[in-house]
């Protein structure tokens, strides 16, 4: 039996003026397979939708084309209408005669409109419906990391009712932040006791994730703890491994490059200074302190906050003279602008210099020379204590985890989020997320945002215990696939693996859950084995065929 196609033309309440709908209807109804053409002036209104449902029930078409607005609107609205009328949402195709025809041309465009409808008709004729299935998922979440972001995420997830495992390489949770909580502006003790009292959270320390495979809702992970191997299933993975800092090498005149270990005792890190300020254990209060900021790493959001906090504390507690040598002060973090004003208010001097300051050590005192951009002259400061510039680095093991979950790293080695605007905490691999410092230069308030977004995304993914997926939307033909591995190598979502199918042949199997339907595999397959329903080769080519037919 031939496919019966119903076409609905909508003039969008009169917003489509330069198309002769009667003529269009006449020409469309001549297309073989088109059994009915209806005119409407407001198909998306309740009345229009009701009318559409009853027309579909009368005419019993197999496929429906709506010619009107952009599929961005029409697709979801009319797919629902189709489902109400007992058809699959996959029997629908839109002809965009409003945004891409009527509104972009002057004068009568009936001819082009007819062509667009013909294109949609030839595509819709070839569409196949797909079975939808609810696939069971594990509701457990694995959080990798042992700092604030990891604990915060675990607590948040537990609060929304998801069981959580924390796997951290540290001996105990929060070990790296011990004693410097207020430096990071987080209260770790309260968080730690909350974790202890939470039966929904299991803590594995010191533990390392050694292997992982699978898809969103069904990751098989091996965790190693003190020689013991723990194998578990998780629905989602959150990477919250934080960051480490390194003192950027400071070049001092007359001395080799120094930095970090072995450098003069009066060149310190932010954290060292914080501890000195915190426990007051310095023999002598430094009279002059200089900070270096921003001269070799522009990603200085976190170091800026640390500098401002420490500068104010040194000024207030010790009464030292404080100079900050910087290119720019980055005040886009929460409260940073206020801190900056406070610092200036209490007498911290900011020296803006375009090139890195030159240093010299003379009799234990450090002399800093820099060209002040505003004064246009060299400024020389002698100080007792120099706080070196810090560069943020990814912690050890970042690469191994990235390899395991097939995610990319950015140029500095941090996890590269999928899309900084749309999905900042997600990856191209569905079901894996990252939070806080491990995705770059993030301070506490941004980390808190991350935790909320990740919790929401995981809740959406796992809370119902099932993921609804269309079965075999993208599928490799068992007969045609030659297991050349091309698709597996190119899939950006790591959704394809080699697997034995019923007849024992090894072919590419595409996960219905992990696949994001881009079609890269279908285009590259040298055996033309991959079929991407909705954008199959014949469905694309049929549209090309239909162009210019009128």
């Amino acid at each position, binding site marked *: 039996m031939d496919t019966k196609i119903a076409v609905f033309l909508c003039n969008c309440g009169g917003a489509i003026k330069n198309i002769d709908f009667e003529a269009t209807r006449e020409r469309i109804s001549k297309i073989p397979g088109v059994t009915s053409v209806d005119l409407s002036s407001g198909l998306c209104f309740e009345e229009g939708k009701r009318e559409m449902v009853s027309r579909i029930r009368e005419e019993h078409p197999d496929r429906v084309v709506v010619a009107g607005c952009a599929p961005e609107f029409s697709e979801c609205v009319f797919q629902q209408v189709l489902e109400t009328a007992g058809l699959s949402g996959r029997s629908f195709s839109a002809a965009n005669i409003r945004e891409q025809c009527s*509104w*972009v041309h002057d004068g009568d465009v009936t001819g082009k409109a007819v062509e667009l409808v013909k294109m949609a008709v030839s595509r819709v004729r070839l569409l196949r419906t797909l079975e939808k299935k609810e696939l069971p998922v594990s509701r457990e979440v694995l959080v990798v990391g042992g700092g604030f972001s990891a604990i915060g995420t675990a607590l948040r997830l537990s609060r929304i009712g998801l069981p959580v495992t924390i796997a951290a390489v540290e001996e105990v949770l929060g070990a790296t932040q011990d004693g410097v909580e207020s430096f990071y502006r987080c209260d770790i003790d309260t968080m730690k006791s909350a974790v202890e009292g939470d039966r929904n959270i299991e803590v594995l320390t010191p533990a390392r994730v050694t292997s992982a495979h699978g898809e969103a809702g069904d990751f098989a992970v091996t965790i190693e703890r003190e020689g013991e191997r723990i194998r578990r299933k998780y629905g989602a993975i959150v990477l919250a491994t934080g960051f480490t800092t390194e003192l950027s090498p400071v070049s001092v005149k007359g001395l080799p490059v120094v930095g970090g270990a072995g450098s003069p005792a009066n060149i310190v890190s932010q954290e060292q200074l914080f501890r000195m300020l915190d426990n007051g254990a310095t023999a002598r209060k430094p009279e002059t302190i200089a900070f270096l900021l921003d001269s070799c790493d522009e990603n200085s959001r976190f170091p800026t906050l640390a500098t401002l906090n420490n500068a104010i504390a040194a000024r207030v507690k010790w009464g030292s003279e404080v100079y900050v040598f910087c290119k720019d002060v980055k005040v886009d973090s929460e409260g940073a602008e206020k801190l900056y004003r406070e610092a200036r208010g209490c007498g911290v001097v900011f020296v803006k210099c375009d090139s890195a300051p030159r240093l010299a050590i003379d009799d234990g005192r450090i002399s800093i020379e820099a060209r002040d951009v505003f004064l246009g002259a060299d400024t020389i400061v002698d100080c007792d204590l120099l706080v070196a510039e810090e560069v943020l680095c990814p912690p050890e093991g970042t690469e191994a985890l990235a390899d395991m979950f097939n995610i990319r790293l950015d140029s500095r080695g941090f996890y590269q989020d999928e899309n900084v605007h749309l999905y900042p905490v997600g990856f191209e691999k569905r079901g894996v997320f990252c939070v806080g410092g491990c995705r770059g230069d993030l301070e506490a308030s941004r980390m808190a945002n991350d935790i909320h977004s990740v919790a929401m995304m995981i809740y959406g993914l796992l809370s119902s215990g099932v993921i609804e997926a269309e079965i075999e939307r993208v599928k490799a033909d068992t007969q045609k696939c030659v297991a050349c591995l091309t698709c597996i190598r190119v899939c950006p979502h790591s959704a394809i693996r080699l697997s034995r199918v019923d007849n024992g042949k090894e072919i590419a199997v595409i996960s219905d859950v992990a696949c994001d339907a881009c079609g890269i595999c279908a285009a590259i397959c040298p055996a033309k084995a991959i079929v991407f329903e909705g954008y199959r080769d014949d469905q694309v080519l049929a549209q090309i065929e239909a162009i210019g*037919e009128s």
Partner: protein
Amino acid sequence: MKGRVIAFCCEHSAYPAADLAGRLRLHYSESLRIIRVPCAGRVDVIHMLKAFEKGARAVLVLGCEDGACHHITGNTRARERVEQCQVLLDEARLDGRSVAMHNISPNAPQKFVRIADELVNAKEQSREAI
């Protein structure tokens, strides 16, 4: 089909840009026909070649901006395929420049119109020259 320009538009970038052009009532050549694809990376060389076989004057593949592809590598793969197609057309002694790849963001309707017009005009001029 003679004289049509076919634009394969990624539904995450170029297609919404084209829609936006409509909403802003910008104008472009009536010979442009847009085919919606889920990602520029879905467009295969054979799709472009078949379009020329059907008589298309030019083919455009429009994907997301570099580094902002919804499917990470889709736009770079599309560019590779367009370049391959250009070579194939040149080999067949047709004009390889009739197929082009451009990156566009969904909020750039003006850019969409400019790309479309430039290609259509360039092809019209070259036809006149012949």
